[in-house]
């Protein structure tokens, strides 16, 4: 239970060796690279590394490879398994051969993507032209226009609402002929032939009616429209077979999708390295690397640097440094670290409350969702998820955390009698007519005795708050502010413990509470110089009792949420068992039971998580927590599809 101690690390290496050093550090996964601050490198002729062009290049490649992956994924013959386990690959074992293979697969995919899109767009053009020519199939005219010595013709279409006889009538006095070739329900296809002297007039008459010249060009040489359509059909067949061939190639290539996935991840890892390189300082020949290393990893880093023969140093952190924070806890508590990460990391050098918080989280979560059935489902699903998806990082911790919380729900379920809410009772009453069903709760049944459950909730809350004050006392004491520890934390602890003891023994309780109150009155004004202000501040501090009481009442949400999940669940039990015990009734029961309880579990799981977290963040952390730590982010291989070892 602690925040890991960090050492400032710096090393100098030759510029040409910098990349290999960064690669090695990336494999060690224990160095958080930062810009050096302690000395001013710029004044010593060093400047920050700039790797912009390489970065842009890698980003482009990565985008390409991701596109390849997405493209090939469509062609996977067997559907993607819902829980596919990522491959584990040892990064240092990847040879140039593998890289070439990956690159080749990617280049091939890129080529297919490009050709396929070309062929497809060509095919679309052919199809469009064929469709445009279709009405002219039987016409032995040149499209769109033709000319003889004295006449000029143009072919095209007018909207079908306009009767072709209408323009004919308008052009009666002109030397013009309109021939209709075909008619669809949208357009009428016709040809205008006119003497050159009248052509302009005739054409504009038609244009006003919405005449659009035929977009295709067909000459006698092509065999008019029919010949052209034939040629286009051949062309489209050729293109279609090309597309089929390319698709087959893509299907074949999709077998090597793993190579492309690896390629993507290798590029991401490269990108991570380049981003880290931007935090280096370099002179003409040398590079200065700086960062933070957890104390227990120093030997690994030292071994690496000794082997390479680079100059290095480790220093202790200065108080003004921005030291990254890494938490280290036992196997149980470390699973609850995501709760802390969701809030804010503790400041470096402050107290890490994870282990104490995890115990309370475990208990309070269980009380809010006290149900053996729900707990079992939660644990089962989380363990399955851990087994099948092999997640890493905070996802892994979250799943194990909820698996633990499921265990807590089961324990609390036995104590407070939740088995899919009151399913056994409902079944006994509605199916078998047993009016007096036995109480399943070992300790308290919140449905029949909510007051007792409320008292337990508040008691857990009181314990939580006193623990928080004890931590405050410890933190202040450890940082040599002993007077503050006794006055600001100690007096409240005495007051609260006194209030607790009061329930057992009135005399001792009263004494302790009085001592606590007197301590507050006499000490809380100590920062004031004026004697009246001292007394006033001392008495005013008693007003904080209101704050503590409202904190305490806040724990009534344990009752509310615990009851809510039970009551809503029992509605589904009543609904499900209502039709009685018959074949249809049993089927009905299973449908309602499954859907209803899954919904109830989902909503209350979310609710319990949010509210348990809130009790930690506001009521618990509020007393002592120092936030604002920067999370420790060591340089590691970055991957999406595979796991780099």
């Amino acid at each position, binding site marked *: 239970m602690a925040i890991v101690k960090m050492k400032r690390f710096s090393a100098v290496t030759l510029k040409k060796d910098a990349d290999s050093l960064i690669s090695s550090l990336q494999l060690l996964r224990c160095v958080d690279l930062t810009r050096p601050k302690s000395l001013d490198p710029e004044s010593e002729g060093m400047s920050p590394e700039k790797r912009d062009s390489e970065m842009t290049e890698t980003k482009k490649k990565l985008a390409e490879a991701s596109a390849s992956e997405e493209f090939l994924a469509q062609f996977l013959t067997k559907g993607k398994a819902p829980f596919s386990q990522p491959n584990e690959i040892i990064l240092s074992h990847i040879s140039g051969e593998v890289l070439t293979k990956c690159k080749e697969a990617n280049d091939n995919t890129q080529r297919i993507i490009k050709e396929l899109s070309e062929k497809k767009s060509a095919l679309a053009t052919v199809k469009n032209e064929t469709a445009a020519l279709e009405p002219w199939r039987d016409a032995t005219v040149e499209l769109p226009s033709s000319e003889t010595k004295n006449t000029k013709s143009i072919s095209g279409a007018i909207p079908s609402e306009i009767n072709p006889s209408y323009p004919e009538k308008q052009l009666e006095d002109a030397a013009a002929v309109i021939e209709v070739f075909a008619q669809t329900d949208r357009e009428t296809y016709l040809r205008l032939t006119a003497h050159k002297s009248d052509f302009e007039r005739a054409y504009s008459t038609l244009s006003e009616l919405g005449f659009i010249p035929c977009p295709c060009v067909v000459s006698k040489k092509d065999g008019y429209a029919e010949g052209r359509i034939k040629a286009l059909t051949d062309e489209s067949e050729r293109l279609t077979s090309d597309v089929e061939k390319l698709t087959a190639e893509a299907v074949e290539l999709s077998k090597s999708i793993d190579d492309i996935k690896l390629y993507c991840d290798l590029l991401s890892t490269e990108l991570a390295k380049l981003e880290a390189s931007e935090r280096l300082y370099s002179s003409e020949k040398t590079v200065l690397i700086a960062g933070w290393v957890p104390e227990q990893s120093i030997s690994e880093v030292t071994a690496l640097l000794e082997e390479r023969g680079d100059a290095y140093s480790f220093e202790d952190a200065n108080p003004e440094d921005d030291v990254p924070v890494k938490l280290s806890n036992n196997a149980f508590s470390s699973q609850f670290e995501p709760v802390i990460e969701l809030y804010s990391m503790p400041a470096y050098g402050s107290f890490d409350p994870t282990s104490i918080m995890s115990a309370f989280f475990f208990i309070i979560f269980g009380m809010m969702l006290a149900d053996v059935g729900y707990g079992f489902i939660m644990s089962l699903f989380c363990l399955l998820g851990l087994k099948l998806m092999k997640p890493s990082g905070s996802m892994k911790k979250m799943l194990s955390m909820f698996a633990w919380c499921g265990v807590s729900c089961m324990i609390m379920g036995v104590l407070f009698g939740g088995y899919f809410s009151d399913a056994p009772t409902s079944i006994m009453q509605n199916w078998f007519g047993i009016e007096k069903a036995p109480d399943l709760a070992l300790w308290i049944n919140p449905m029949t005795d909510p007051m007792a459950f409320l008292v337990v909730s508040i008691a857990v809350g009181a314990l939580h708050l006193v623990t928080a004050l004890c931590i405050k006392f410890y933190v202040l004491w450890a940082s040599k502010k002993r007077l503050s520890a006794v006055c600001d934390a100690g007096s409240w602890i005495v007051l609260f413990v006194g209030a607790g003891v009061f329930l057992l023994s009135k005399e001792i309780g009263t004494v302790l509470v009085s001592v606590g109150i007197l301590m507050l009155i006499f000490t809380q004004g100590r920062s004031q110089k004026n004697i009246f202000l001292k007394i006033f501040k001392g008495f005013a501090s008693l007003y904080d009792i209101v704050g503590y009481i409202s904190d305490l009442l806040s724990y009534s*949400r344990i009752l509310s949420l615990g009851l809510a999940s039970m009551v*809503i669940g029992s*509605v589904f039990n009543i609904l499900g068992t*209502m039709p009685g015990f018959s074949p249809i009734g049993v089927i009905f029961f299973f449908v309602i039971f499954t859907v209803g309880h899954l919904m109830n579990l989902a*909503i209350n799981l*979310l*609710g319990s998580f*949010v509210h348990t977290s809130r009790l930690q963040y506001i009521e618990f952390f509020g007393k002592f927590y120092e936030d604002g730590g920067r999370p420790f982010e060591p340089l590691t291989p970055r991957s999406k599809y595979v796991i780099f070892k």
Partner: protein
Amino acid sequence: MTFAEILEKILSGQNLALLGAALAATLAGIGSAKGVGIVGEASSAMLQEDPSKFGKALLLQALPGTQGIYGLVAAFMIIYKIGLLGDPIELTVAQGSYFLMAALPIALVGLFSGIAQGRVAAAGISLVSKRPAESIKAVTSAALVETYAIFALLVTLLPIFFFQA
């Protein structure tokens, strides 16, 4: 028939209880419909850019939908308790209004919390669109609004459960 007589006919115990059930289902349903609608509008805008975030958007959109379900649950429990599904029990006007009053918390809180939750979730959609990794925070803020609907449902259901005919 005078107005008073009409009132007397309408205001039977059973009708008052039914009014409670109707209010619970209707008002909470309106709240959810509005809430889900607000999130839906926001999420379609995001999905135009990136359809792959549909799962996350759907989760946020589903959140304000629960008030409607709570209203339905409360309405159903009232209908069940007054025996409309089997043999109806005789209710006095006082007993009928007992159910009507019990229905009010989920009806009113369902209406307003559904809309409020919809607004929070819609704001969460823009968080998801910019920083998908942070979507749990958007869900968490929206879930906080949900709490009050759960509490209201609790206050509605407890009197219904412990009703003695």
